[in-house]
């Protein structure tokens, strides 16, 4: 089909793609620098030795997963309020990246748990509710995949995203009452400054990665929607569709 002048903005502007690419390189370099600095400068931990270094990637991954899900929550509320499709697509992008970070945090935590706790998995509150969050947002993505009508998909996934995010706290509390074993959260006060620096650097690097991933997925979602809209338009106009 011929390309008409009314192409959506996302499809024609080369600017965003280039900017996203630059962001990607910055994020990549930030990860390299953060890993290098935190691996070389921090001494082995008194109890865990070099295993402690897993913290630099495990903790930021978990933080970024929560941040991404928090974004889904806020954007879903915004969508139901304003009914702007961009909020929905951005929420979907955040959910995808959240799932990746969530799975990464669980895998790294498991690798860390085996030598320090002696088990790959334990049924404590934080661990379990993190796993439940992963399943909830996998369900969110499945719902999106199985719902074709874009308006319906947006409304439904917004409802699922809001309820799922809120429920993760209830799951956390209920598992905590059920049983708990996880170490008490470290805070900057219980953490030697040399470790804090590495952790902060990694958190920033991971944040850049998160923004880069979300930007890419959001752009892809915008383009997909534009293509869908064009197919619909062409079908309504009675043309054959060649995309």
């Amino acid at each position, binding site marked *: 089909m011929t390309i008409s002048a009314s192409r959506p903005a996302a499809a024609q502007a080369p600017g965003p793609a280039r900017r996203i690419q630059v962001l990607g390189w910055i994020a990549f370099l930030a990860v390299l620098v953060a890993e290098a600095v935190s691996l070389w400068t921090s001494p082995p931990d008194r109890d865990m030795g070099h295993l402690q270094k897993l913290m630099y990637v495990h903790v930021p991954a978990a933080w970024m997963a929560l941040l991404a899900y928090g974004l889904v929550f806020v954007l879903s509320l915004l969508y139901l309020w304003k009914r702007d499709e961009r909020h929905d697509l951005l929420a979907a992008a955040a959910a995808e990246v959240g799932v990746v970070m969530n799975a990464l945090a669980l895998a790294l935590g498991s690798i860390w748990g085996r030598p320090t706790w002696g088990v790959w998995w334990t049924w404590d509150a934080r661990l379990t509710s993190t796993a439940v969050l992963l399943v909830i947002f996998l369900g969110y993505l499945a719902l999106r995949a*199985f719902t074709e009508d874009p308006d319906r998909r947006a409304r439904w996934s917004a409802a699922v995203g809001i*309820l799922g995010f809120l429920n993760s706290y209830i799951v956390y509390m209920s598992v905590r009452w059920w049983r708990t074993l996880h170490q008490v959260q470290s805070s900057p006060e219980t953490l030697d400054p040399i470790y804090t620096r590495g952790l902060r650097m990694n958190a920033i690097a991971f944040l850049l990665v998160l923004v880069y991933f979300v930007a890419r997925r959001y752009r892809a979602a915008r383009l997909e929607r534009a293509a869908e809209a064009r197919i619909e338009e062409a079908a309504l106009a009675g043309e054959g569709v060649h995309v």
Partner: protein
Amino acid sequence: MERVRGWRRELARAGAIVWKDLTAERRTRANFNAVVSLAVLTLLLFGFALGPDTEALRAAAAGVLWLTVLFSGVLAFNRSYQLELENGALDTLLLYPGERRSIFLGKLGANFAFVLLVELVVVPVAAVIYNLPLLRPFPGLAGVMLLGTLGFVTLGTFYAAMASRSRAREVLLPLLLFPMMIPVLVGSVEATSALLAGDPMGDSGAWLRLLVVFDLVFLVASVLAFEHVIEE
């Protein structure tokens, strides 16, 4: 006064939907018979999977009982909307004057009655084949069944409103519903096993109160979100 009358009218609407759904079910009984059969089968399968050791079976009974309710009850929810999808009945239902939430409450009431009836068969059967005491913990156990089922059915009715109208509804409903169910499941199983063991620590009361909180939270959240899910 106007407000009270409005609420009463909504409840009457919800009641009409409950009555309609239960009448449809009573006249065929096809769904109920199939779900109950599957539930009994599940109880037997858990028995085979967990071995013939009577003590081990009894220790696992509370969890087995609730998982059986979950796995068989989940089959009822999609159907309650599927009935409406044929001949565009749901659109007609939406065209009637009144709030959307009365549709939700009606579906919720019908599903609640349905799952409770299934439990009326499943619990005695479980008591027989898992060798459980039923009479001693009876009043408390009935309370747990009511509260746990209410939480389950609330979430199930809510998610089925979406899943039943999507492709792949068979897998989508449990995938959406079961993770959300975990607090209710933990509370119900803990309370049930405490009661079955004679409640030596007296902690079934705490779990029961938690179940009340979970039920209220999920009920309010589902009613609020349903407006956005059902509008067409």
